[in-house]
Every structure is written in structure tokens, then in C-alpha cells.
């Protein structure tokens, strides 16, 4: 399967949107305007942008603590997303979730998830509902490399495999579980081999290569939409920033990070689009500029948004009836 040039350009724009959004979030964090645990996916944008480009608006995703990319790629309004990161009343979760729990249920995003592996069975459940409702929707479970060492990963893959549920498991392997390199925590090199235990296809791709991700995901999506069951896709990538915004990163060298920056997925797709005559430099510059403008608008929106009213702090613990 080859992505159309229009789709590739969408992916390019989405990657830029994520990058500029996160640079903005980092800036706000460093200037003490944004607090809490913020996990950036700068350098890893290719997987969320590509996978979500190949989903329908009503398909489901469940995300991770490093979830801004998934949220934006699934269609979030960056203004509401940044407002949530800043805990404002206008945020997606009315300031109750923050970066680690941002959700956009109307767009099919069943939430970032601050527990490693915690979102995997939730995506499986959404897929179960789709299968029962015969509505053709599929679910994508995003998770990191370390989640594959959690019991719930294995439970959920087995469950989904037994029932041939319409869910694709997408592992973003950025090489580290916080400070611990994969080789130190994990008995296998390619995490996709873990699919063998569940008798489902497992494939490892270059997670900074949009075309490779698209090919693997399209095949997996076709398979689940045909009712043939899940696939595990491992996308090998690298996070440029620390695990969180305050991470001193003593566990790796600057040189290693700089080497990976040369493999920037955005730069790579840009070169591909230009070399293949799919887009001009000016066109792509305009997209980048638009992404920057959106991030600026989001900042202005979030900074001017009200704080949530403590009077309503107990609202929504339970559904009490009414519209939502």
C-alpha cells in the first residue's frame, strides 16, 4: 500500500503540529506557566501522525503518558489540548486530567494513560464493543517499549487474539524506559517477536519512516477490518527530550541524541516529498508556519482561559443524569 501524496502531506502537517505544540508546551513549562508531569514525544511524531492518518474519525485509540501526539493526530483542537495541559476550564478534561490523562472521547481518543500499559485493555474493550455492534470501527492501542514488560500487555494481546478483535497494537519503542535502556530491561531485541506468543503477526519497522509505518499499519488495519484479528507493530524511534521535562538525562550522551536528530522524521518526509515532486519547499514551509501559528494561537487561548471553579470540583465523579 502506498500513501497518496495528499495523505503524506497531511502526515507532514500533523507532525509539524505536534512538534510545534510540544515546543510550546516545553517553553511554557520552562517559564513556569505550565506545571506537572509533561512527557514530550519530539522526535517520535511519525507513528502517531501516520497511524491516525489511516484511521477513520470514528475509530478508537487509547494512548499513553506520552500522549500529546496521539491526541493531536486523532483530531484534537490544539487550543483545547494546550488548555488542558495548563489545567484550564476550557481544556478537554476541564483541567482535571492534564497532560497525562488528556482524552477526547468525541474524536475516539479514550485517553492518555499515566499507568504504563493501562490503556491496552481499554483499547481491546473498545474493539470488543465494535465487534459486538458490528459497526466496522477499529481500535489502536499505542504504548511504549516498557509496556511490553507489563503483565497487562500480555493479557490484553492474548484476549484480543483469542477473539480476533479489531485492534492494532502499536508499540513506540524509543529505546528507554525512563532511564533504563531496553537491553537492560527486556529479554528480546525486537519487541514484535512477542506477537508469536499470541499467534498474531508481529512486525518491526523504522519508526521514523512514515512510509514504512504506513505500509505496516495499512496491512494490519486491512487485516482487522476483515475480521482476521490483531497485529503487533513495533516502531523503533527515539525521544529527543528527557523522559519528562525535568529529566537531567545522565543515562545517555549528547552525541547519541544528536545522531538521532539527524534521523528527524519530519526532515525525512520533507526531503521525500520534495525529491518525488509531491510538494514544493514553499508549500511545506507554509504548513510549518501554519503549525507554528496554531501553537501560538493555542498559547494565547490557554493563557486567556479561566481556571476551573473549585465550586465544581466534585462534579462528574458520577454521572447524575442530563445531557452528557
Amino acid at each position, binding site marked *: 500500500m502506498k500513501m497518496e501524496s495528499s495523505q503524506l502531506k497531511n502526515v507532514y502537517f500533523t507532525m509539524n503540529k505536534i512538534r510545534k505544540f510540544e515546543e510550546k508546551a516545553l517553553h511554557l513549562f520552562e517559564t513556569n506557566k505550565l506545571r506537572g508531569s509533561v512527557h514530550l514525544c519530539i522526535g517520535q511524531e511519525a507513528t502517531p501522525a501516520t497511524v491516525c492518518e489511516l484511521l477513520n474519525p470514528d475509530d478508537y485509540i487509547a494512548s499513553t503518558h506520552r500522549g500529546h501526539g496521539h491526541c493531536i493526530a486523532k483530531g484534537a483542537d490544539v487550543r483545547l489540548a494546550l488548555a488542558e495541559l495548563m489545567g484550564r476550564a476550557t481544556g478537554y478534561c476541564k483541567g482535571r486530567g492534564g497532560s497525562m490523562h488528556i482524552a477526547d472521547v468525541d474524536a475516539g481518543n479514550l485517553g492518555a494513560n499515566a499507568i504504563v500499559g493501562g490503556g491496552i485493555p481499554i483499547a481491546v474493550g473498545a474493539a470488543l464493543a*465494535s465487534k459486538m455492534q458490528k459497526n466496522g470501527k477499529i481500535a489502536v492501542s499505542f504504548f511504549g517499549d516498557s509496556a511490553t514488560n507489563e503483565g497487562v500487555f500480555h493479557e490484553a494481546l492474548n484476549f484480543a487474539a483469542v477473539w480476533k478483535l479489531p485492534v492494532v497494537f502499536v508499540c513506540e519503542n524509543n529505546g528507554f524506559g525512563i532511564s533504563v535502556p531496553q537491553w537492560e530491561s527486556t529479554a528480546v531485541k525486537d519487541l514484535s517477536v512477542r506477537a508469536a506468543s499470541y499467534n498474531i503477526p508481529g512486525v518491526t519497522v523504522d519508526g521514523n519512516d512514515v512510509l514504512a509505518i504506513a505500509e505496516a499499519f495499512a496491512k494490519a488495519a486491512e487485516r482487522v477490518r476483515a475480521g482476521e484479528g490483531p497485529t503487533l507493530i513495533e516502531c523503533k524511534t527515539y525521544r529527543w527530550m528527557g523522559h519528562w521535562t525535568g529529566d537531567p538525562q545522565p543515562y545517555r550522551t549528547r552525541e547519541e541524541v544528536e545522531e538521532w536528530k539527524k534521523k528527524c522524521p519530519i526532515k525525512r518526509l520533507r526531503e521525500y516529498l520534495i525529491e518525488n515532486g509531491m510538494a514544493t519547499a514553499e508549500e511545506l514551509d507554509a504548513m510549518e508556519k501554519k503549525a507554528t501559528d496554531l501553537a501560538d494561537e493555542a498559547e494565547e487561548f490557554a493563557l486567556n482561559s479561566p481556571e476551573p471553579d473549585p465550586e465544581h470540583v466534585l462534579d462528574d*465523579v*458520577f454521572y447524575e443524569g442530563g445531557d452528557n
Partner: protein
Amino acid sequence: MAVMSYVNAIKETMAAEMRRDEKIFVMGEDVEVLGGIFGATRGLAQEFGVERCFNTPISESAFVGAGLGAACAGMRPIVELMYMDFAFVAMDQILNQVAKTRYIFGGKAKVPLVIRGQQGVGRGNAATHSQSVEAIFMHFPGLKVAMPSTPEDAAGLLRTAIRDDNPVMFIEHKQLYIKKGEVPDDPDFMIPFGKARVVREGKDCTIVATHVYVYKALEAAEELAKEGIDVEIIDPRTLVPLDVDGICNSVKKTGRAVVVHEAHRTCGIGAEIASTIMDNAFMYLDAPVVRLGAKACPLPFNLGLENAVVPQTKDIIDAVKKTLYKA
């Protein structure tokens, strides 16, 4: 009215609700052909097909989490935990995910999920299959908690749980499954959450009791009546929400209270209820509230040892007398 057992009241309520709403389905360990090890799902797979009542792998985190995901995606799952002790294997999903989803999503998701199963001593299941776990779920906000003691309450509360758009921990007791009683035929028979049942009216002391302790409290009441002591027994039926007024109004009338449950006394629901009584009815109390619960000890296998750990009828009698300064 039909006379049926507690376990059949649960089964019949699920079946009736599944007939009414095809979004409702049941999953759990051995719920299909076996019908659950206590028979609570017997016949459901036959009537509704294995699409709507199906076995899961022994993977509590996966199937509780899948229940949550399915609930967010428009279904109304009933998840059976074979023993409530197994909730501990799925605690991340229950406490970090199920309980919090609606709130941390800013109220933009509904989680109509029932997690049900049985707990308690009495069948020689020993330390990891006999625990009473309700206090944990009462502690963390976001879950409703029901624990019926009669077939009628089981039916009425379960129907309310299934029709609720919030997650409910529906806690049954293994010893109560064979208990028989009348259950209304009304297909919409529901008992509202947060409404305690007055099991026995009396004037001298209030006993707040749950599950099998409702029956032990009745035994104690009979003995105490022989000595001229007239107790009132209140079964809260749901812990979240808790009928604070129902409990406290009884205590205001009697001036005395004993709270008894099978769960460990330390940080048990008795502590919360006793404190609630103090908050709301302190000036009416003629004696300190007495709490009874299991000793701070894992539940042993041997029956004599098990009985030594959990409260007995005599303990309730003694506790009531203590509040009356007769012990």
C-alpha cells in the same frame, strides 16, 4: 412474587435485563458452559448465545479493562469476578482506570459497567478466596458499591446497578447464594442506591450489619429479646452512596450503635460508619459506638480458626450489652 434463591435472583435479573437491552453482555471466568462456579450465569449463554455471555481467559486485568473500554464505546458490560479476592489482580484497571475515567475526562465519558462477584468466608476457601473487600472500593471515589443480603435486595439492587451509567462494584456473599426469599415479579423492580433497609425495628440499640451479619444480628436480636433488650437492625445495602440519614436517624432513636461486618475491623467500613454516626448523631449517643469485624489476621483454612477470626453472634450480643453497660 416468586420465591427464589439469592443466586437465582441475580441470574434472573441479569437474564431479564439482557432481554430488555441488547447492549448488556456478561463476561468472566467460566461463565459460559459452567455458568459460573456458583451458577450465577447458568443458562445465559444458552439463551443469549456465546456472543453475549462468554468465557474470558484467566486475565482479570484484561477483561476488567476490556469492560471499561466496551462501556466507553457504548456497551453495558457485566463482568464477573469469580472471587472478589481476584479484584486485586485487576486493581490498576478498577481503581486507576474504571473509577477515575469519567472524572478525569471532564465528565465526557459514561462508564455503565457492573463488576460483580462473591466474597466471604464459609466454604473453607482460606486466605485468598475468603476476604471481604468492600472497604477498598468505598475508599476510592468513582465507584458505587452494593452488597445485598437478601434475594429481593439482590434483584432490586442489581437491576439498579445494570441500569446505572456509572461503574458499580456489586458484591455478593458466597454463603448467601442458597438463601431463599420472595422477589417481586415486576420486570422493572429496582431498589434505589443509598437507601438502607430497616431489617428489624427496635428501641434500645442500633445494629448496622451487612451480608451474612444481617442474619447473625437477627439471631443476636432474638437472644437479646429474651433479656428484654430490643434492638433495631439496619442493612445499608449500598456503601456508595451510603444512607447516612437512615443510619443516623436510627441511632438518634436508640442512642446506641454496634457496627458489624465480616471484613477486617481495621479500616473496615465499620470505622467509616462509626465516624459518620459520631459526626451526625454524637449528642444522641449514650455510649461509644462499638465496631466488630475480623481480627487483623489472614483468614485461616481450618473452620474453627476461621470462626475465631470473624465475629460470631455472641460477639454481637456482647457488643450490644456493652453499649447498654450490661456487659
